[in-house]
């Protein structure tokens, strides 16, 4: 109730006072993803545009997240109107999908709060400790020293009890599962340092380590927070991509009225109208109209399928020829989609738990720490020291070996690497993705949409004259068919001005025609053009004809991404084995493989066939990176050692992939592999730094020479050293081995 009142006040305060309570109650908040929000100017434009829509009471953009939060009255306006308004001012927007993101963001906030408390406590305890250290050199009053120690205890103990909880919890979880992770030695170190410091404070000695304990907590929380923040950002960006691809559907009600609604709100039994050139938003059955369907995103097959009423149609396919009506149906067990879901489940179970580098290090490190501590204790006892002094030395060893640098070593490098990749449009979603990518030695590409662009381009443009191409393009500009778009693109690439022609008639399934001063022009299938002129021959896909001239054939192909050949060459030069695995026909796959310079290829592969090939490679001891976009690649993406998909991929595939890349070039594959390897190298370097620090300081601790000052200095220096080392990854040029030679 209190919340409702506050919402009402905010709305009233934020706009004019005409907004009565009755309307406020129906107001709702929604989040929009805005794709091309880049700068401050965009923020103002977007907020103004949204506020100009009647019924909107509040609009606020978030530039980091590329999102806008809108409060609107759902009796006056709806999401669709807001999205259309943003489209009108030039921004591509969509409704944000609500997911686990909010949960992760809360976790990051929680870590930030603990970080703030730890920082406050560390600064104040340090202030007191420095006085004590300075006092040891001069003549500090023992009573004042005791007071300072007690004050430190008063600040540090509650702060540690609150701030270090994430480590304690994670350690407890690991121990309960009878595993060791990095948080076990961390928790042990923090707890022991605090407990012993309290004991020594009571006794009034010098061995007080509160500053070390709280600083350790502070540094580790920084690493943990950055780690979480990068993951939240990556997940947010991945969700934005999916949200922007989400389709809206035109639903035909029983009374014949059409209305737009988001595709995910569709229910079985609804009739959905799909215009030519639109993606089909839902799985269903064709009930009205005949058309050609481009299923390349589902099967990898590039030749469109002809569909008549009764045919099953998959969501995500492209309606090429003419408007159709589809009845949404529930997925039944015999469809391709159900088979893919089954395969994916099996693949995910088969992959097993991957043990991260830091945890592998902890498995070696934790026992070593405990053995060293025990040895110190036993050694001092044998040497004849009392149990109290022996225990003090043993605990000093545990404090000094507490893996501050070790626990920062991997997160710091991963954060630097992930943000570097983020800047280049590569989103690493899986937290252990980079580590798995670094181990890859084989790259398997899918063809359609991955190695190629996934859309037709004009193949024989060189054989067609400027004048003919320009006239064909001005005819084609009237149509949304992918072939028409390819002709228009070819013409504008050549610098010809394409003026859309008026009075073009589109005959569904056949082609385009127009009447001009020169007589009739036609662009379309062979049969359609032959109707006007009988003498057309040859095998071209599309023909252009004008009265009194010979028909001209247009051939199309799914062209490779611009740098596919260079990327494959660079990968092979760096020692990766490269394969092509596609669901398309053998012949097409062969020519694509030849164009890209890949020797190993396989066509006509079904989803289970792809998995079988991956299993074969795995049995040969290979670690495979699968790069794919189609729905038929999803199980393979889930089964491979690591996986990558373009942002144009099917939703399921994008979700299954460890990383997503944006843009037309294929070079992110190289960047990703190179950065993953550099990350691994740098993480190992950081381990080396951390171990070197232990080699120096552990003998000192075992010999009983570690004072609180030495412990604090050693801990800070090693943490700063590994962090600084990790930051090099942000700026340094990283090349995949021998990549320069192939360029």
């Amino acid at each position: 109730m209190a919340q409702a009142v506050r919402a009402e006040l905010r709305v009233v305060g934020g706009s004019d006072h005409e907004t009565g309570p009755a309307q406020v109650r129906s107001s709702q908040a929604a989040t929009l993803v805005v794709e091309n929000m880049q700068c401050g100017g965009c923020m103002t434009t977007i907020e103004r545009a949204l506020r100009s829509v009647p019924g909107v009471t509040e609009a606020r953009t978030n530039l980091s997240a590329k999102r806008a939060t809108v409060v609107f009255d759902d009796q006056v306006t709806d999401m669709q109107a807001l999205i259309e308004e943003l489209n009108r001012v030039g921004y591509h927007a969509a409704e944000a999908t609500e997911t686990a993101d909010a949960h992760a963001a809360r976790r990051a906030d929680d870590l930030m709060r603990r970080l703030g408390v730890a920082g406050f406590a560390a600064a104040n305890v340090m202030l007191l400790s420095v006085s004590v250290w300075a006092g040891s050199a001069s003549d500090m009053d023992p009573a004042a020293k005791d007071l300072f120690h007690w004050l430190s205890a008063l600040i540090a103990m509650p702060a540690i009890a609150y701030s270090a909880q994430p480590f304690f919890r994670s350690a407890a979880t690991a121990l309960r599962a009878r595993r060791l992770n990095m948080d076990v030695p961390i928790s042990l170190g923090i707890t022991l340092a605090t407990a012993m410091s309290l004991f020594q404070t009571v006794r009034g000695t010098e061995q007080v380590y509160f500053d070390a304990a709280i600083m350790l907590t502070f540094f580790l929380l920084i690493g943990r927070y950055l780690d979480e923040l990068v993951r939240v950002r990556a997940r947010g960006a991945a969700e934005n991509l999916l949200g922007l691809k989400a389709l809206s559907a035109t639903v035909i009600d029983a009374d014949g009225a059409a209305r737009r609604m988001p595709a995910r709100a569709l229910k079985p039994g609804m009739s959905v109208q799909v215009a030519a050139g639109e993606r089909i938003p839902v799985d269903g059955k064709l009930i009205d109209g005949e058309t050609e369907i481009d299923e390349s995103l589902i099967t990898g097959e590039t030749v469109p399928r002809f569909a008549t009423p009764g045919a099953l149609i998959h969501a995500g396919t492209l309606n090429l020829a003419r408007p159709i009506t589809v009845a949404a149906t529930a997925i039944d067990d015999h469809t391709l989609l159900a088979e893919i879901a089954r395969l994916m489940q099996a693949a995910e179970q088969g992959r097993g738990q991957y043990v991260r580098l830091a945890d592998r290090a902890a498995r070696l490190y934790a026992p070593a720490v405990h053995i060293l501590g025990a040895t110190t204790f036993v050694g001092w006892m044998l040497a004849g020291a009392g149990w109290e002094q022996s225990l003090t030395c043993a605990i000093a060893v545990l404090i000094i070996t507490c893996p501050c640098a070790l626990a920062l070593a991997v997160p710091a490098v991963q954060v630097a690497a992930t943000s570097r990749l983020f800047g280049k449009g590569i989103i690493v979603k899986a937290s252990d993705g980079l580590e798995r990518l670094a181990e890859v030695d084989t790259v398997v590409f899918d063809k359609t949409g991955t190695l190629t662009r996934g859309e037709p381009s004009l193949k024989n443009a060189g054989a067609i004259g400027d004048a003919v191409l320009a006239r064909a393009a001005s005819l084609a500009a009237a149509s949304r068919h992918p072939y028409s778009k390819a002709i228009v693109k070819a013409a504008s690439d050549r610098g010809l001005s394409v003026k859309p022609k008026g009075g073009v008639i589109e005959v569904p399934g056949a082609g385009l025609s127009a009447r001009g001063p020169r007589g009739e022009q036609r662009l379309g299938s062979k049969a359609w053009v032959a109707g006007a002129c009988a003498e057309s021959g040859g095998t071209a896909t599309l023909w252009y004809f004008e009265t009194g001239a010979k028909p001209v054939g247009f051939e199309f192909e799914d062209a490779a991404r611009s740098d596919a050949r260079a990327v494959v060459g660079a990968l092979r030069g760096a020692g990766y084995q490269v394969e092509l695995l596609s669901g398309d026909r053998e012949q097409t796959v062969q020519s694509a493989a030849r164009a890209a310079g890949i020797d190993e290829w396989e066509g006509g592969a079904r989803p289970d066939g792809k998995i079988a090939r991956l299993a074969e490679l795995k049995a040969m001891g290979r670690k495979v990176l699968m790069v794919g976009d189609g729905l038929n690649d999803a199980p393979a993406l889930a089964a491979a050692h690591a996986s990558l998909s373009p942002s144009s991929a099917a939703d399921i595939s994008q979700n299954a992939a460890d990383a997503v890349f944006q843009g037309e070039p294929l070079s992110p594959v190289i960047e990703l592999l190179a950065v993953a390897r550099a990350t691994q190298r740098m993480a190992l370097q950081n381990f080396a730094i951390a171990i070197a620090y232990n080699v120096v300081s552990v003998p000192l601790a075992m010999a009983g020479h570690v004072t609180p000052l030495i412990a604090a200095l050693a801990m800070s220096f090693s943490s700063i050293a590994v962090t600084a080392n990790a930051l090099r990854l942000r700026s340094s040029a990283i090349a995949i081995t021998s990549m320069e030679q192939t360029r």
Partner: protein
Amino acid sequence: MMALAWLIPCALALGLIGLIAFLWALNSGQFEDLDGAGWRAIQDDDKDPR
């Protein structure tokens, strides 16, 4: 020693004020859009009080 009795509580109180200010800023969402906040500072006001 009298100086310490004043100065230590002062130092702690100042630190505590900083901590409280930080937690307040965090809870009121001021760290949510660090990129956008920089832009908002140099933008013309939109007749809108925010």
